[in-house]
């Protein structure tokens, strides 16, 4: 699969986040397990391509998410996704890490992402809850969903993004 098809897949994932997932996640957990599938793909970009590509992907798809779900303000997801994608790429990029490391990165990345959005909403006085509450209410439960999704798509996404992995596979 060509790498540019990844963009179509990410747009589809963005739509699935808003349409299919609310039906799958049971009622009481609706606000606690938040799907961030696009962000998981951005993390893959950061680890297996370059951090600049992850930054651009994060900014663009974050902005798309912000615009189509415009409630309070635009730019929260864009900023958080871009920043987290870049930071993860800076620390873990170009190391050709395996599946175990990637899962650890997904946990770390989604914690970082949710904490950044929490910070922004608190800074702009939209949120008044404590960080402890946020951690147990939605940050930790969401990590599990992101982890499950990352496990599910690890092989196809890495095969698409990581050119070295693809060559190795063909040999």
């Amino acid at each position, binding site marked *: 699969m060509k790498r540019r098809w990844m963009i179509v897949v990410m747009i589809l994932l963005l739509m699935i986040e*808003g349409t299919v997932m*609310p039906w799958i996640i049971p009622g009481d957990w*609706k606000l606690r397990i938040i799907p961030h599938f696009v962000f998981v793909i951005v993390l893959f970009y950061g680890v297996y391509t370059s951090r600049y590509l992850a930054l651009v992907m994060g900014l663009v798809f974050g902005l798309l998410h912000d615009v189509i779900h415009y409630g309070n303000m635009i730019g929260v997801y864009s900023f958080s996704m871009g920043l987290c994608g870049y930071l993860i790429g800076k620390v873990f990029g170009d190391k050709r890490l395996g599946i175990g490391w990637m899962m650890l990165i997904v946990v770390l990345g989604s914690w970082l992402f949710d904490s950044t*959005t929490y910070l922004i909403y608190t800074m*702009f006085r939209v949120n008044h809850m404590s960080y402890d509450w946020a951690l147990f209410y939605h940050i930790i439960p969401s990590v599990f969903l992101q982890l499950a999704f990352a496990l599910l798509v690890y092989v196809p996404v890495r095969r698409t993004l990581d050119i070295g992995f693809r060559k190795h596979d063909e040999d």
Partner: protein
Amino acid sequence: MFILLLGMILFISLLGFTLSKRENLSWPEKMLNDTFGFAQNMIYKPAGFIAGLFEDISNLNHIYEENEQLKIAVSHYIRDKANYNFIAAENERLQKALNFTEQQKKMYKYDYKIAQVVSVNQDPYNYTITINIGEKNGVKKNQAVTSVDGMVGVISQVSPLTSTVQLLTGLDERNPNSNAIAATAIGKENKSFGLIESYNAQEGTYLMTKIDENDPLAVGDTIISSGIGEAFPRGIVIGTVLSTQVGDFGLTHTATIKPAVNFDNWKELFVVVPM
């Protein structure tokens, strides 16, 4: 480093600008909203249909019970309907006698426009849903949105074919974008008054404030919007009173309200448009 700093400044100004009150969306935003709304509409419905199939099977046991309750409700409705017709006719006669203007007569008449949910944003700080009617159907910013059970939220942004609903979970007295809802209780419409100002995510309840100390509001009362101030339409169910307390300064009382809606499982919603 310099670029990072520049990016930060850019983003903080973007956040600040979009947080303030905006009258209209720019055309790229509208275009994106409508395109995604159209595409998501194609996914949301089939997904809901499949999910609903399983739900229906598990709900089969409750049907008899529900049928019983509905029969009782219908009998109540028929009795009230006869009574209502008398009162409505009387009201019309009196309005004519007192020379009400056309505008005054239309004051509390609303059109409930049905809308389908297109997508849901599950974010505890920014819980919004997108619906498939917009500017072309007469939807405007800040109009109330209800479900069958009660008030759900407020229209936050409007595009030509879709609009975004900010749910009442975002209700907050410290946020300049959220309006408090003037409310009263069923059966005590002229005696009770309070403002629904904020939502407590931890408890899942609203806080109703500025209630007079001699107010007859009691635990178990059904709270409806009062239409005073005209920001919200009159007579939409908001919730039931769980408990009442003395307020922060001891001058007024506050009440904890349990929402009438669950904030999950969205299918059809109604936008309340003044006529």
